[in-house]
């Protein structure tokens, strides 16, 4: 396809005619702040944070939805542009309950970052939060629409990405808000708790409830790994603070197979890891009761038990059950152990269940 040439902040930029101004500017090294834009979602141009000035046009254009054109002359950082952005963000700040010291998102909030980036020191408007009750209807997702900036990213994530079709923008004008069917809370709605909405929310409106007060965003150590539930193999990030798993997130940049999407189990069913029921020491049964044992004691008993039966009855008197939960390395080792050490092929696992 023939490339088009436009001028951004005085620099000549060649790009595909299918590109938007935002993409072209970013690839040329110019930063344009955004809010309702998300690379995994369709762009809607609703928040006006990404506005730019285009020579010959009266109004400012939302760069995320404006296609480039040959010969276009764009300014991304003029005084008029910055003033417009600042006004948008000030109005958003005034229209909700954005008290960072009481907010779980502080430190991981795009609105907070925008206020900082645009140098907003104080609001010229009175703060009028809508006063919605907080939705604490369930153990997984906490919803506080007083912190919602109506960017609609959650709506697009729910409908375009997961296609769960649970939420939409309801009501009109100043009363507009994100709603489930009949404006119920999440717990009583059709929500299936995939948490895709939480993962794209730029503010503290949607948060993982169990992670509240378990650490600040910058304290989490993220380890990328593979989900332990079904066979999809979703890539996820285990968020750890002080040796404890406090939440699970993902990132669309991890790529296949899930491109950042998770389900209720993958995102919220991690609390078994630190459950008090976890076995933490070897156990030996004596007189029908388990007693705690050291590893050496337990292993000696296993060695004794298995070798006695192998010697008396032959290796085929032993059966080994491997696990579809364990890693490849562990399954490989277990079949090697069964065949080369015990000397039997009696190994199977519950692939059929």
């Amino acid at each position, binding site marked *: 396809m023939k490339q088009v040439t436009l001028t951004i902040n005085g620099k000549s930029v060649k790009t595909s005619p299918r590109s938007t101004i935002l993409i072209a500017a970013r690839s040329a090294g110019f930063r344009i702040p955004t809010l309702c834009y998300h690379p995994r979602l369709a762009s809607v141009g609703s928040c006006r944070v990404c506005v730019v000035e285009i020579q010959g046009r009266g109004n400012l254009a939302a760069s995320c939805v404006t296609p480039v054109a040959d010969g276009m002359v764009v300014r991304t950082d003029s005084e008029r542009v910055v003033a417009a952005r600042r006004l948008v963000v000030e109005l958003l700040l005034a229209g909700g309950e954005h008290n960072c010291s009481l907010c779980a998102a502080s430190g991981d909030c795009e609105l907070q970052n925008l206020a900082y980036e645009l140098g907003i020191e104080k609001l010229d408007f009175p703060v009028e939060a809508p006063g919605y009750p907080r939705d604490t209807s369930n153990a997984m997702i906490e919803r506080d629409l007083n912190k919602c900036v109506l960017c609609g990213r959650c709506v697009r994530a729910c409908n375009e990405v997961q296609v769960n079709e649970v939420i939409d923008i309801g009501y009109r004008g100043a009363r507009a808000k994100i709603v489930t069917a009949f404006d119920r809370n999440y717990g009583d709605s059709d929500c299936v708790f995939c948490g895709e909405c939480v993962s794209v929310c730029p503010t503290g409106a949607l948060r993982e409830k169990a992670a509240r007060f378990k650490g600040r965003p910058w304290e989490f150590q993220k380890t990328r*790994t593979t989900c332990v539930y079904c*066979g999809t193999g979703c890539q996820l990030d285990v968020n750890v603070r002080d040796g404890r798993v406090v939440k699970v997130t993902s990132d669309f940049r991890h790529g296949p197979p899930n491109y950042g999407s998770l389900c209720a189990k993958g995102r919220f069913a991690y609390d078994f890891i630190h459950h008090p029921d976890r076995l933490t020491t070897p156990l030996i049964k004596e007189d029908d009761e388990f007693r705690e044992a050291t590893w050496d004691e337990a*292993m000696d008993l296993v060695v004794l038990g298995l070798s006695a*039966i192998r010697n008396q009855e032959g290796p085929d008197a032993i059966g080994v059950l491997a696990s579809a939960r364990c890693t490849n390395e562990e399954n490989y080792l277990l079949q090697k152990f069964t065949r080369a050490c015990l000397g039997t092929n009696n190994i199977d*696992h519950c*692939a059929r269940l």
Partner: protein
Amino acid sequence: MTNSISDLEHSEVILVTGSNTTEMHPVISSALKRAVRKRGAELILVDPRKIRLQRYASAWLRPKPGTDVAWINGLLHVILRDGLQNDTFIRDRTQGFEEMAELVKRYTPAHVEEITGIPAADIERAGRLYGRAKKASIVYAMGITQHTTGTDNVKSLANLAMLCGNIGIAGGGVNPLRGQNNVQGACDMGALPNVYSGYQQVGDAAVRERMALFWNVPQLPKVPGKTLTEITAGVLSGQVKAMYIVGENPMLSDPDLRHLKGALRNLHFLVVQDIFMTETAAMADVVLPAASFAEKDGTFTNTERRIQRVRKAIDPIGDCRADWSIIADLSTRLGFPMSYGSPEAIMDEIARVTPSYGGVSYRRIEGVGVQWPCPTPEHPGTPILHKESFTRGKGVFHAIDFEPPPEVPDAEYPLYLSTGRVLYHWHTGSMTRRSAGMSERVNRCEMEISAHDAAKLGLENGQEALVSSRRGQIAVTVTVSEKAVRGTVFIPFHFAEAAVNELTHGLRDPVAKIPGIKVCAVKVEPAPVSESR
């Protein structure tokens, strides 16, 4: 899967059967739903239950449980009758076509309607939808395989895909969705009685010698071992005296539990290695505490054959140890030393002895996992199988006649029972039932029943009911649901306090040895008031 998850979004037509995808594989279901909503793909859903995917389906077929071969033969019949088959593919890449074509002549839509209860017109429509598509994929799960005719069901789906040339192409394929995080990998690694890693046969002398040489042992056992069912039978007959069970809970997941419990009690020595005191671990002589997935390094292989990293995020809890380190220690103590510094060293050995994993290394899969076969480090991996030819050369059509399931409703046990999972729980529930969020959504065993059947039996929503089969009885909570089809109840198997596998039968598919737990006959009655809580 012959194809990849992302590839499903490029299909024109997707046939989903025996998979409640939105609950069992939610993230894959999103790909299916996107294909329908964003790309205009047509979804053919074949499932007796009115599952959520039905909202997205262009055609919805509701067969009687256990009649899959019949409706698939019906589709084959319609496609052949209307000349929608791919003659080039059939000629160049398959054999056995004539016999199959001859057999399905009998499966007219009217005949199929008699067997399956699916209206003949719907068979016609689904056959034409699938047959006319340039690229159509088939997605299935345990609803197809967990039958005494499971192998026949899968071969029948393969017939359908080959008939229309939907193999080896993007947007096509036969795609089983695997239900456990590493069930693919456990099979790949040879945790099976008849194969080493990479499906190398233990019965093949050359393979055996090579493995013995590599593992540095004088010889390896020649005869394929026992499957889980055969091990259980062996315990009862006294042939098998000891078991070492790592990370499985057959005492909840296996059919006909009473039989299994008797077997485990008969053992002289049982070692269980797990993260929780499961129903199985409770029966052990020695329990070894294992690390969870968050506490160790390694790899899982997903349903699209993608080998991906598992990374240690926290130290093992208490005195727990990673399974690999326990196994290596045990082997060493039993006189066969194993010393690996890390799981990465084990993967390097796997790559050396497993042709399909030959190119796999942790460095290679650091960013994005690779799909096997990946025989060399330079190999790009294999997103689509059977592109040029099948593993055995030509694809084989199988002429398969319908056989009714071994147990169908009768006067005494008038309802079908089907089992499975629900969205918020997983397998035997040892992890999800200990999760606050999941338990808040679902924390009791609910039986799905149609309003019609519930009314007939005098059952109300939320009431306690007793369900019995020829093998046992459990108490469940009644959920009158529009998902349920008349004549069939559905009960999930996550709940130890209402273990549905006390009801299922242990009859197996003769080839795959998979139990037919998707179909049995039960009766349902209101629980006596004294037993209600």
